């Protein structure tokens, strides 16, 4: 049945809540049964949950063909406080379904990949029981991300926003007892904390935007707010709408890693690679772009907000691209690349090019996830080459073989001195001390991997070409649309983005030559094995999508623009194809790749100790790029250390010295003891004791007095009786 014939078909909008519920059911199953049922069960349940969510998203997309304007599916009333009414409702329209498809589709592929990758990772980290925990967190993430994209109000979106921040924290700090290089320490949990706290700053901005929205427009529901923005724009003070836009931008800089809050994303590479692929490339970080696109009426109503958003995006794109050039860690290059590409997207939606931005979001999800998963495959291969695990069936390398190989390959007689040690013995368990001296993620420890890992090489090539924007790969079409929009709307941004695109192609080319070409610089790179099929098949699928993904929105056909137009109206205008821009960008990209070949491909680095050719050329500039322009150190100096000093002051001086030592001890304790002494000595001893002593003395005195009457003389008694009789008689007679 062709899609076009479904246009009057049945609608499945009522299934919308299941995109959230199915991953929740998946994670509950894993919580209850996961440990008992083993790794295969956990991986299958988690991947199936993601896949079923994808199926539901597809059904929703089909429903939208019959009813393109979408529908809001209300489940229950959540909050009704005064004028604020927020229902628990799912908003199914073309924009949210696009995000749902990306999240669940790419998510499913990453789940399948992770079921293979984590099998090795938990054994390298000596904690096989954590396998279940990983997939629980992954499913939780999918559930929250679906909540984010399907929310019908800013508050529902915020629930998902915070939830994915939580999952990001849990997953970045997944190996929370270790450092990113594998040694024992706290740096992974520090990275997780950094992500959470930086995001919190952004969330604060987002909250202020929501408060302003509610205060001036009376609601948080999307359709009510946007309607109010359009009709009431003249009745609210003129600063309100730009302020909402700018505060929302603060939230976007946090979640989507723009200047100034991007600093958490490179540190987030401490998490396992599937996490980097899913959360920090394809889905969570795009939430900011989604937010701006969803709020298009607000941004369209304020030129100032738009300019600021676009400028922030463009500057971030260029800044991050320069840092990526100087990185040696394979994942750090991709992390800064992600920040840069997010800058592209934010710049696009800031300029009003919502279609271009969303298109790039989708294609970027494909090829960036591919690149990250490919990097994970490379890292795993290098680790397996360096340190084969018997428990996974890798054969341990024998000392002799390594000796002859090394001498044959490294003609200059350079041993791979880092890993000379562990291969002497025939039996290995993971976790020898030598791990920390060898960084499997450092590109200088790689080289020539296209021979040892061919499948990974080819898919990585496709991802690189897509990211660099070479026609006809997906990245070309989407990036070009952004550049075309920029050249028409915002020339400054156009120049910044073009330079960033040039650098993008350059650093990706550099990465390809350093990792896959030349000769292997270490034994580990040479002994690397190709990854298992659970990993290579998703890579293949993503590579396919990176190649053909451009078909989503080809010029003049504009499938995606028409799709989004149902939700966004005229704001989803399709950019015209600008051949000049396309040619310029393609030429620049090819030039960049040629340049990278000249520096890194023609005369590849011979050993791990060689200096980067760019360092020789650019000297201190390269150092700046490598040290990420000292942004973290600057934040440390400006904000973090003063804050820590302030916190220490509050803790030691104010809380301890003043409150505990002085106030508690001197004022309260001493006062209370004084009061006690007052009550004890004068009152208790002085007064109360005296009274009771007095009573006792009085009684015995009285009794001594009275006992003198009883003298034993009978005559006295007789006299008393006689006198008593006289008195009584006298009284009776004389009465």
């Amino acid at each position, binding site marked *: 049945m062709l899609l076009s014939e479904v246009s009057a078909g049945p609608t499945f909008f009522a299934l919308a809540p299941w995109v959230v519920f199915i991953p929740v059911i998946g994670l509950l199953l894993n919580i209850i049964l996961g440990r008992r049922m083993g790794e295969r069960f956990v991986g299958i349940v988690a991947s199936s949950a993601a896949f079923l969510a994808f199926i539901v998203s597809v059904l929703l997309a089909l429903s939208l063909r019959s009813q393109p304007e979408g529908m809001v599916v209300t489940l229950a009333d959540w909050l009704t406080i005064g004028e604020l009414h927020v229902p628990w409702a799912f908003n199914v329209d073309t924009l949210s379904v696009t995000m749902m498809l990306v999240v669940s589709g790419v998510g499913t592929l990453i789940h399948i990949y992770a079921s293979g990758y984590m099998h090795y990772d938990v054994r390298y980290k000596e904690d096989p029981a954590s396998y279940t925990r990983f997939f629980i967190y992954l499913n939780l993430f999918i559930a929250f991300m679906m909540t984010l994209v399907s929310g019908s109000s800013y508050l529902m979106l915020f629930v998902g926003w915070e939830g994915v921040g939580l999952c990001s924290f849990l997953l970045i700090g997944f190996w929370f007892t270790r450092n990113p290089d594998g040694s024992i320490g706290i740096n992974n949990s520090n990275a997780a904390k950094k992500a959470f706290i930086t995001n919190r700053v952004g969330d604060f901005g987002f909250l202020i935007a929501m408060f302003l929205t509610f205060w001036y427009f009376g609601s948080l529901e999307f359709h009510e707010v946007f309607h109010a923005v359009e009709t009431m724009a003249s009745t609210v003070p003129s600063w309100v709408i730009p302020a909402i836009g700018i505060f929302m931008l603060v939230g976007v800089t946090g979640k989507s890693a723009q200047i100034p809050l991007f600093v958490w994303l490179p540190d987030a590479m401490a998490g396992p690679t599937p996490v980097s692929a899913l959360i920090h490339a394809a889905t969570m970080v795009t939430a900011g772009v989604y937010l701006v696109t969803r709020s298009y009426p607000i941004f369209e109503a304020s030129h100032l907000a738009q300019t600021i958003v676009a400028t922030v995006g463009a500057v971030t794109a260029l800044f991050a691209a320069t840092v990526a050039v100087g990185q040696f860690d394979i994942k750090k290059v991709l992390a800064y690349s992600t920040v840069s590409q997010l800058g592209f997207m934010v710049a696009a939606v800031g300029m009003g090019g919502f279609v271009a931005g969303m298109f790039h979001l989708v294609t970027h999800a494909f090829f960036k996830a591919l690149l990250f998963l490919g990097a994970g495959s490379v890292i795993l291969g290098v680790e397996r080459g360096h340190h084969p695990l018997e428990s996974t069936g890798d054969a341990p390398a024998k000392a002799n073989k390594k000796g002859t190989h090394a001498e044959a390959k490294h003609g200059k007689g350079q041993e791979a001195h880092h890993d000379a040690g562990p291969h002497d013995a025939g039996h290995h368990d993971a976790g020898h001390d030598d791990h920390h001296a060898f960084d499997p993620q450092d590109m200088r420890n790689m080289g020539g991997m296209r021979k040892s890992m061919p499948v990974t090489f080819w898919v990585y090539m496709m991802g690189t070409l897509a990211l660099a924007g070479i026609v006809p790969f997906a990245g070309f079409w989407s990036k070009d649309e952004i550049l075309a929009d920029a050249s028409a709307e915002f020339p400054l941004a156009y120049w910044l983005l073009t330079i960033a695109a040039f650098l993008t192609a350059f650093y990706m080319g550099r990465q390809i030559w350093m990792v896959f070409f030349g000769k292997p610089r270490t034994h580990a790179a040479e002994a690397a094995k190709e990854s298992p099929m659970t990993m290579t098949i998703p890579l293949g699928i993503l590579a396919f999508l990176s190649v053909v993904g451009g078909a989503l929105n080809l010029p003049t056909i504009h499938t995606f623009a028409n799709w989004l137009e149902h939700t966004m109206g005229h704001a989803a205008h399709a950019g015209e194809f600008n051949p000049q821009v396309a040619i310029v960008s393609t030429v620049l990209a090819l030039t960049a790749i040629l340049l990278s070949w000249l520096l890194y491909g023609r005369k590849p680095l011979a050993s791990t100790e060689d200096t980067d050719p760019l360092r020789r050329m650019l000297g201190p500039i390269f150092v700046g790029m490598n040290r990420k322009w000292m942004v973290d150190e600057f934040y440390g100096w400006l904000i973090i250390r003063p804050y820590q000093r302030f916190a220490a002051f509050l803790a030691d001086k104010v809380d301890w010295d003043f409150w505990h030592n002085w106030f508690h001890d001197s004022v309260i304790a001493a006062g209370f003891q004084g009061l006690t002494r007052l009550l004890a000595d004068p009152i208790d001893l002085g007064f109360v004791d005296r009274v009771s002593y007095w009573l006792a003395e009085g009684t015995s005195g009285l009794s001594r007095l009275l*006992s003198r*009457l*009883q*003298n*034993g*003389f009978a005559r006295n008694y*007789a*006299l008393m009786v006689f006198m008593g009789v006289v008195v009584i008689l006298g009284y009776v007679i004389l009465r």
Partner: protein
Amino acid sequence: MIPVENYIGLSAILFTIGAMGVLTRRNAIVIFMSVELMLNSANLLFIAFAQVYQEVGGHVFVFFVMAVAAAEVAVGLALIVAIFRSRGTINIDDLHHLKG
């Protein structure tokens, strides 16, 4: 006849003498004799009024009194003998062992 006032006066005087004897004499037997005197004075009064009001109840009561007096004297004299046997004296001033 003899006016009844004379009998009343005599009875009063006898009673007073008896009371003085109880209060002031030291010998226990003399105290008993004084008690008897008081009882007899009461008897005299009873008979006098019985005569005046021609009541026979007065005479009956005198018999009661006499019987009681006799019993009391028997018991009392037995007590005195017992005291004399244990203490060697019946001087009541020397018998103050029940002092408090």
